């Protein structure tokens, strides 16, 4: 498993004439961890959905290692090597934790036994092993967030899209997740793009931050640069002090 480069080339999307995302371009180099931040409604999840194939961009293209993936179905984009989590978690509620992750692992392992072993290994690393026989619907929200990550990782992606996986976690739990993702990135070279409001996690993980507001990219740079960028301070940080 190694990382892939992600290129967004001027992607845009409108819903019934309402411009959700307009002409957004940025690159996440292979093996890098970048963050996508912006106020609520800025279009972050819409950008994720275009990368993951939930809908195709109206304009522009999404490339993974140079191959155009925009316009493909979500399962094809998963084939291409993109794993994603959902902001509003979507566990397979009636299945056990282990089987949730096994479904992801079946993407790379044809046989149920192998897939289950691979799923169990991922669950151990995320600290969910003890709960593997519980039904997913019985998990607490932080555990459901972890399950989202585990299920996406089980597909062995080259690019991992994390949509607010830290939301609702306690500070110590955030640190554990940050540590896990950092190790994962260092060990496997997996490229990670995260949408996150928990700035503590963004600062700890992201080499670069892309800031969007009203569907447009307004800044990009290292955390140090972005926190001093006037446009960012105006639209986003006016309300709260950045860590």
């Amino acid at each position, binding site marked *: 498993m190694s990382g892939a480069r992600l290129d967004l080339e001027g992607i845009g999307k409108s819903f019934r004439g309402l411009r959700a995302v307009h002409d957004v371009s940025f690159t996440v180099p292979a093996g890098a961890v970048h963050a996508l931040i912006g106020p609520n409604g800025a279009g972050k999840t819409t950008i994720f959905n275009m990368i*993951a194939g939930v809908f195709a961009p109206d304009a522009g293209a999404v490339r993974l290692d140079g191959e155009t993936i925009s316009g493909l*179905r979500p399962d094809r984009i998963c084939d291409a090597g993109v794993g994603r989590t959902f902001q509003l978690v979507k566990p397979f509620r*009636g299945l056990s934790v282990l*089987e949730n992750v096994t*479904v992801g692992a079946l*993407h790379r392992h044809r046989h*149920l036994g192998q897939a289950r072993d691979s799923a169990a290994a991922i669950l151990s690393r995320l600290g969910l092993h003890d709960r593997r026989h519980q039904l997913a619907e019985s998990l607490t929200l932080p555990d459901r967030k972890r399950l989202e990550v585990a299920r996406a990782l089980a*597909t062995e992606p080259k690019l991992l899209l994390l949509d607010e996986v830290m939301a609702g976690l306690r500070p110590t739990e955030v640190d554990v997740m940050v540590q896990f993702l950092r190790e994962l990135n260092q060990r496997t070279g997996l490229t990670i793009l995260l949408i996150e409001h928990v700035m503590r996690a963004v600062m700890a993980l992201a080499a670069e931050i892309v800031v969007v507001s009203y569907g447009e990219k307004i800044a990009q740079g290292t955390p140090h640069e972005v926190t001093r960028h006037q446009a960012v301070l105006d639209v986003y940080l006016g309300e709260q002090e950045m860590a």
Partner: protein
Amino acid sequence: MNLVRRLVGNAPPRILWSLGALLALLLIAPALLGKYWLSVLILILYFAYVGQAWNILMGFAGQLSLGHALYAGLGGYIAAGLYFHYGIGPWAGLFAAVAVAATAGAIVGYLGFRFSLAGVYFALLTIAFSEFTRVAFDHWAWAGGSGGLFLKVDATRDIVNLRGGPVLFYYVILALAVGAFILCRALLESRLGRYWLAIREDAEAAQAVGVPVLRCKMIAIVISAALTALAGVWNAFYYNNLFPETAFAMGRSIEITLAPIIGGLGTLFGPVVGAVVLTGLGEAFTDLSDALRISGIKQIFYGLALLVIVVYRPAGVWPWLADKLGLKERQP
């Protein structure tokens, strides 16, 4: 051997022994039972079998069909028509029957799944197709129109043409029910089966982890329709008559869904347990209404009994029963 191991999997020996004993009993049942009880057992096996077939689509893949009479009716009519007009026996005719029903399933499935009709909207589509087909068969001379199609009643055993008495039909439906049970177990323990469950739980999340949702749903409806067509073939030769008004009736579709719903959706034993409960209740209430000499009271009691079961055992009888017996059908 590998397949056997996968099928048996981690089922406790207790269950395997009980199933073996049950199968042995069923195999010798015709020698032990009188005509009446054999006919009851035949009904149970029939509902267990079609229930299993319907459960693949609803219980596993989560797609509600209220028009399964379409596939049973097509299967029955095709096989019976080929025999009636050209003397082609059902063992050959069933291939045509299955092909036609599977194609019908593929058409309904494609229209529904490709255009993302979900839940009750998909169910309405299945009803609509079943109804169109009923009207078409009312006017189709080859199939006898609304006057129906009749096979000559002949109790001399002729296995090649599936002619004979109840014992022959008993063994055929027993083989179908056992075969469907084994097939469903194998499907559930496969990648496809897990993909179905994932789709049933959340199709969007399933697709995000690489599940080809449309293809998996299509496979589910085609397998379900094909198996249901076999029940239709069996039904046509057992009862020797077919009418559009009954073969494609809404009631026929509903009765196919009852055993798995009452027994436990998405479970392997649900359709079987449900078939026993429903047929048992049906027979008991028939006797009761005969004894009370009030006609129609059977339906009232039957409806009330279903109501009570659905209210008190919403997940079905089997999960509750398995718990009481200390068994747990392993939650996948």
